[in-house]
């Protein structure tokens, strides 16, 4: 057990024993090797389920949102004297804490409804990179030993270096420490200060228009609209998503490449100034659609045009919830 894991368990036990929180949301060992699953701990007997390792991938903020909003719904028809509060504790790395900041900015719940167990994070293992590292074979067993990932496949044992299989978004992360926290499980660590954070965007933008479209449409053709990306995204919490609406029917229900494209364009557009680059959508995508290349563009515009980074500061307004009189206007068409 690593020291961070130990501290998470200690803090979770204290919070539950002192009845400070109703549930602790964290990671537990998954059913497959080198995988973890989110877990919901409500009693201190179960505290040993909590783990922390580079296989902890998901952004847990979405579960904080759903736990709190479900509780609020359940309290609607309760007599005032019987109403209860719910406090959720969450194991939060940098990106999770940024998503929590977005929720707080968007008035989804109050700061006192959530207890943040902050964790310094050096990145997680990317599913696609790991798969490439073992030539697409099924991982039968795996373990992490310091900077090495020991993997066993049907063709025998191999060892990969952790940094090699760390996800791209983690390697460019500027928020290795949580931006807000109530408790830190471990010392703050320096962030990866990538110089060309937006290289992926600049390279793509330099391609000719036709090639960009060809790439975009080919990627979106892979999409089977399982909506896993939407379901996992902490910023996608609408009660009724536009894809589920039938009046008007924004996105057709059938199998059509154009509807895939429109769905992805609009889902990504909703991420303008709200995407924390946690990589959860990429991680859950069953078809391996290259979503990050497009989401990162919105990130870049957000920073270039409005000097904003999603969820980086609690008291800085999101780009689309405010405006300035002298905003960038070069794109406005003026006739000769």
């Amino acid at each position, binding site marked *: 057990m690593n020291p961070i894991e130990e501290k998470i368990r200690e803090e979770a036990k204290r919070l539950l024993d002192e009845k400070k929180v109703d549930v602790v949301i964290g990671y537990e060992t998954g059913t497959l090797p080198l995988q973890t699953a989110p877990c919901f701990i409500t009693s201190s007997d179960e505290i040993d389920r909590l783990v922390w390792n580079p296989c902890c991938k998901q952004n847990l903020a979405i579960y904080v949102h759903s736990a709190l909003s479900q509780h609020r719904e359940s309290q609607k028809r309760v007599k005032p004297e019987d109403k209860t509060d719910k406090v959720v504790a969450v194991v939060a790395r940098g990106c999770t804490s940024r998503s929590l900041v977005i929720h707080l900015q968007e008035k989804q719940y109050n700061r006192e409804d959530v207890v943040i167990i902050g964790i310094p994070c050096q990145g997680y293992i990317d599913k696609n990179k790991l798969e490439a590292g073992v030539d697409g074979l099924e991982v039968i067993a795996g373990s992490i030993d310091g900077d090495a990932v020991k993997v066993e496949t049907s063709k025998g044992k191999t060892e990969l270096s952790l940094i090699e299989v760390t996800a791209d978004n983690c390697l460019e992360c500027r928020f290795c420490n949580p931006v807000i926290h109530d408790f830190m499980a471990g010392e703050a660590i320096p962030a990866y200060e990538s110089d060309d954070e937006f290289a992926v*965007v600049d390279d*793509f*933008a330099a391609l000719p*228009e*036709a*090639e*960009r*479209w*060809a*790439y*975009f*449409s080919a990627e979106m053709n892979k999409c089977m609209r399982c909506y896993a990306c939407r379901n996992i995204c902490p910023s996608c919490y609408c009660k009724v998503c*536009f894809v589920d609406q039938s009046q008007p029917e*924004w996105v*057709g229900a*059938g*199998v*059509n*490449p*154009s*509807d895939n*494209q*429109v769905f992805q*364009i*609009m889902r*990504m*557009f909703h991420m*303008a*100034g709200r995407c924390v680059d946690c990589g959860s959508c990429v991680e859950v995508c069953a078809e391996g659609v290259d979503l990050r290349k*497009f989401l990162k*563009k*919105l990130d870049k*515009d*957000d920073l270039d*045009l*409005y000097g904003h980074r999603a969820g980086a500061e609690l008291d800085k307004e999101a*780009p*689309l919830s405010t*405006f*300035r*009189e002298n*905003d*960038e*206007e070069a*794109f*406005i*068409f*003026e*006739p*000769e």
Partner: protein
Amino acid sequence: MTTETKTEKWEPRIVALVCNWCTYAGADLAGISRLQYPPNVSLIRLPCSGRINPFYVVKALQHGVDGVLVSGCHPGECHYISGNLAARRKFAFLQNFLNYIGIEKDRAIFTWVSASEGEKFARVITEVTEKVRALGPATKLIKELDCV
């Protein structure tokens, strides 16, 4: 529409999403002043440019129009004080993003036309029609119903 666009007599079809208070009144003025502008544009009147969901632009392109024009009051002149300022940020993101994924920049054009600028409205429509004509018929993002 797709069969029509394949013929030689192709004419660009443009949808203009305009605000009720400035651009629509500007279009009215252009009409009253007997100004000539190409008949390729269909105006859709909305309460404010801030009311224009960026999705409208994407949906219009999906339904096969060759160009979308979005126009509202000049900054500072919004009937609802700041609708167009909020809209400006959305459209900056939208145009950059659509261009980034490979849709031509001139397929979605954003401009300001006030109620007194009937002459500017006619010029905008003329120039936008020429820009879209130069691009040719839209081919991207269109929903081909026959492939279902």
